[in-house]
């Protein structure tokens, strides 16, 4: 026994107030798109900072730098010291996997010199590296060209998006200027899902010269046994004169990600506001539908339909609107969100519309459709058939 109103009733009811139906569907689309974008953003933020973490890698930082690589300075000879005195360092390609690096923010200019007052500048992130960096940072793959030599830079895959410029301007052989010197782009690298992709890498020795430093920011050290940094810590404690702290990269990137917790919360709060607005709109639409059809619904109940049968038909109506809006929203998200990069604090990550964000977006709009039915449903369940039949 069906005991339910035909599905056609719900379907055709959508056409009774086409404008209202359309507006409700659009608000559902907005919700779906926004939820996809927010999920992609928050997930991007999370994976970006966790993606670079390696269980077998720790960072040696200056203990006065408050765990900030850019502010940290360690002695230039640290790599050799560690290699000579700490057991259990992993050997890769016949050499210890220790990468001394300078991390710094810098002002970048595109194209060859000389410098012009009116040319655009870009706030970029520069990392001075040796060839050892490629043995230590597993996430990095050189996608074109080769590691940088003097006067050269290797450019991360997201730098162009972060600067919002034509990728051709960062093609092989193009010029970049920073710290008063001109560099030729010798290659590109990818490090999917990490902030490394928004960086420009150049030889450590040259960056030291340009910035008049004789130190490094930090050393990344890979050990034989993942998670076991005991020998490194012992070294840091014995050599108090070096003022070092050992931070596993997992810890370091988690802390970095925690730093962005307020931004994540803000993103969700914004999404919640829009969702609340859409919920109100959807509830209003269905309430109006019930108001418009009071006498008709009362007649259906007089025929023998129970309150639930009518509520069910209203939910179908609401879900039809929500689902079609949701599909539209997913399409919009695919077009406008997918592949876009978000710049954040001299870094960047790209937004991916993946299964999780699509699920959140679509489920969100459907849930909205169900919740939006509630006030109208309550009204139908409470209505007096006799009184509703007297409606004009």
């Amino acid at each position, binding site marked *: 026994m069906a005991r339910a109103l*035909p599905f056609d009733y719900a379907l055709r009811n959508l056409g009774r107030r086409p404008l209202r139906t359309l507006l409700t569907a659009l608000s559902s689309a907005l919700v779906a798109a926004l939820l996809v974008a927010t999920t992609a953003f928050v997930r991007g933020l999370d994976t970006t900072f966790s993606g670079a973490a390696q269980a077998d890698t720790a960072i040696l930082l200056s203990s006065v730098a408050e765990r900030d690589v850019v502010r940290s300075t360690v002695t230039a000879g640290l790599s050799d010291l560690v290699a000579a005195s700490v057991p259990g360092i992993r050997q890769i390609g016949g050499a210890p996997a220790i990468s001394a690096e300078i991390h710094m923010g810098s002002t970048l200019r595109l194209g060859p010199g000389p410098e012009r007052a009116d040319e655009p500048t870009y706030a970029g992130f520069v990392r001075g590296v040796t060839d050892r960096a490629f043995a230590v940072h597993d996430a990095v793959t050189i996608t074109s060209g080769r590691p940088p030599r003097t006067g050269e830079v290797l450019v991360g895959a997201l730098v162009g998006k972060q600067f919002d410029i034509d990728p051709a301007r960062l093609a092989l052989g193009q010029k970049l200027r920073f710290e008063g010197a001109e560099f030729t782009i010798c290659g590109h690298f990818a490090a999917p899902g990490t902030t490394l992709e928004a960086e420009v890498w150049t030889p450590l020795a040259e960056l030291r010269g340009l910035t008049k430093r004789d130190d490094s920011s930090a050393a990344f050290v890979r050990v034989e046994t993942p998670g076991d940094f005991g020998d490194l810590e012992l070294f840091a404690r014995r050599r108090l004169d070096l003022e070092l702290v050992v931070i596993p990269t997992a810890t370091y990137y988690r802390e970095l990600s925690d730093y962005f917790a307020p931004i994540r919360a803000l993103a969700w709060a914004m999404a919640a506001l829009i969702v609340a607005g859409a919920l109100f709109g959807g509830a209003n639409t269905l309430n109006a539908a019930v108001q418009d059809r009071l006498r008709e619904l009362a007649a259906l109940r007089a025929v023998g339909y129970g309150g639930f049968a009518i509520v069910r038909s209203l939910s179908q109506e609401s879900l039809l609107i929500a689902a079609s809006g949701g599909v539209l929203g997913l399409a919009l998200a695919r077009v406008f969100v997918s592949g876009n990069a978000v710049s954040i604090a001299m870094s960047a990550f790209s937004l991916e519309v993946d299964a999780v964000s699509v699920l959140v977006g679509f489920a969100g709009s459907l849930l909205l459709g169900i919740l939006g039915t509630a006030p109208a449903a309550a009204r139908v369940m409470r209505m007096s058939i006799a009184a509703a039949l007297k409606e004009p």
Partner: protein
Amino acid sequence: MAFIELRNITKTYRKGEHVVTPLADVSLEIEQGAFCVLLGPSGSGKTTLMNLVAAIDRADRGELHVAGADLMKMSSGALADWRAQNVGYIFQQSNLVPVLTAYENVELPLWLMPLSAAERHQRVSLALAAVGLTDRAEHLPKQLSGGQEQRVAIARAIVADPPLLVADEPTGNLDHDSATGVLTLLDRLNRERGKTILMVTHDPRAAEHGTRRFTLDKGELRELAPGVLR
């Protein structure tokens, strides 16, 4: 027990401080197959009485048995099921669903019954034929005249073959000819199919169709002697 039996039925409505008592201690017995006409001034409680008998409203107190069911003791869900099987309600306005065709409107009560698609089709076709609207099956209500709409509503009321038809001023909105058509139809349903009919009307001509006539005034129900109007 009679087909319809009301004992000391009282119904009051509260409008703020105002209490209206359209039915005060009303008793009534109607045998199966009767065509009863209910007359009375506007606001006298005729619709209220019909709604109680059709189980779409509840009395405050008294006893109410219709078609063997004790309506005062049933849950609203049970009443809905009971309505689906026992009552066809014809309103003053046709109350058809505007987005459904005549055919689909007539089919509505059948979705509540354990019928196959073929059985539904057969019943809808018979009901539409009975009201003479076979050729209007695919029309939407707005494409029908008032009289045709009301006939579709009658088809919807009889399609599930309920023993009781309740009609609240069914000709109130119709012109003379359409009204005649509707009254003739009700007459035939009563005589040929044995439907018990309860009809409210203001139209003296319509009242003549009744085998029994009642007036309701100031909460009091009286039966008129045969042949006497007003």
